[in-house]
């Protein structure tokens, strides 16, 4: 175990790789983009800042606790994990690796957008199974707050998309 003084932010970020979104267990919090800041002060105190994907996301408390658990496991006694809206999450913050993980999981990654999410953006989903663009949105709401439901006219399968936000 590294001594507290030698702690690098990049190292802590690496530790957090093992913390996954409890509703999408292939996606790490790093790749989801909800870790908005990691700080180590001169006394060795570690502060991790996080931001929720959706305001009412029930998985947020679990994620916050999972981050704390990792810090404790790594021997960081003095730590704080802060959840706030100072940085507002949007779906463009999902990393390339995260987008690939979503697709492999069978969830269409959110279309990238210029922060103006309208009906044209939401309807534009490529099928995660066959990559066809010939798809139709069935409803902008799904089994969790962050998913919408679609149907692929090419491979005739229903699929879900991580919503653009």
């Amino acid at each position, binding site marked *: 175990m590294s001594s507290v003084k030698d702690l690098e932010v990049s190292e802590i970020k690496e530790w957090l790789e093992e913390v996954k979104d409890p509703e999408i267990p292939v996606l790490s919090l790093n790749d989801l983009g909800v870790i908005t800041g990691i700080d180590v002060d001169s006394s060795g105190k570690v502060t991790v800042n996080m931001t929720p994907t959706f*305001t009412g996301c029930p998985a947020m408390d679990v994620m916050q606790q999972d981050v704390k658990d990792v810090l404790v496991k790594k021997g960081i006694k003095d730590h704080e994990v802060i959840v706030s809206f100072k940085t507002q999450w949007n779906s463009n913050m999902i990393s390339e690796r995260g987008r690939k993980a979503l697709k492999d999981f069978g969830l269409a990654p959110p279309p990238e957008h210029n922060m103006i999410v309208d009906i044209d953006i939401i309807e534009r989903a490529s099928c995660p199974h066959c990559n066809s663009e010939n798809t139709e949105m069935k409803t902008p709401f799904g089994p969790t707050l962050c998913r919408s439901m679609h149907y692929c006219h090419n491979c005739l399968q229903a699929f879900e998309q991580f919503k653009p936000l």
Partner: protein
Amino acid sequence: MNQNAIKDLLYKMADDQLILGHKNSEWTGFGPLLEEDIAFSSMAQDKVGQSWQLYKILNELGESDPDTVAFMRNAEQFHNSQFVELPNGEYDFSLIRHFLFDTAELIRFQMLAESSFETLANLAKKIKGETKYHSMHANIWIKQLGSATEESISRLQDSLDKSMPYALGMFEVSEFEQDLINEGLFAGEEALKAQWKTKVTEVISETSLILPDMESITPVYGGRYGKHTEHLQPLLTEMSEVFNVDPTADW
């Protein structure tokens, strides 16, 4: 910052979200289509989550914790508009209320994203993105059913006529309205109402529905000052039933 003014604003918004969120959740298992069942349930979860975050800001300003505030107050201590506490009725009424409320809600949080109170502005930037989905959902169905069959049009028209006095009641001004405006906390209910009218008119004009003449309607006020219909207290009693079995229980 005028503390009483900001608290009043936060309470009325949080109470609207909590109560309408609860009403939306009553559609779970009863939606006319599976997709609508899921839509109303999702919107319920969003709205209750948003109310929780607004109550958390109130908590930081010295009010009780969110659970206590949500579950331990009586009807006369709630500041929601009477519109959101009305029974769901049939799907046509729920849909019209959803449309009229969420059109206002989206504009409200777009305005609040510019608030001089940074904590609220940050949360509003988040909520407006989520509410966009609610508003889009409402617009799609109003446009579709508002031009579909004789029955769908007449049902929506009846609900629209019945709703309008209550919908206008959402914009009842606060006793601190001028402070909110002067301090840049919120641009005010009148400014919101003007933008809302424009948007509502735009959507309704794409249907066979007729927008009632808003100038000749007397708004149903009172909700923002704790005056409610007979529907609110039973709703609160039911909502807090589990909590009140053991308020100290840890979940």
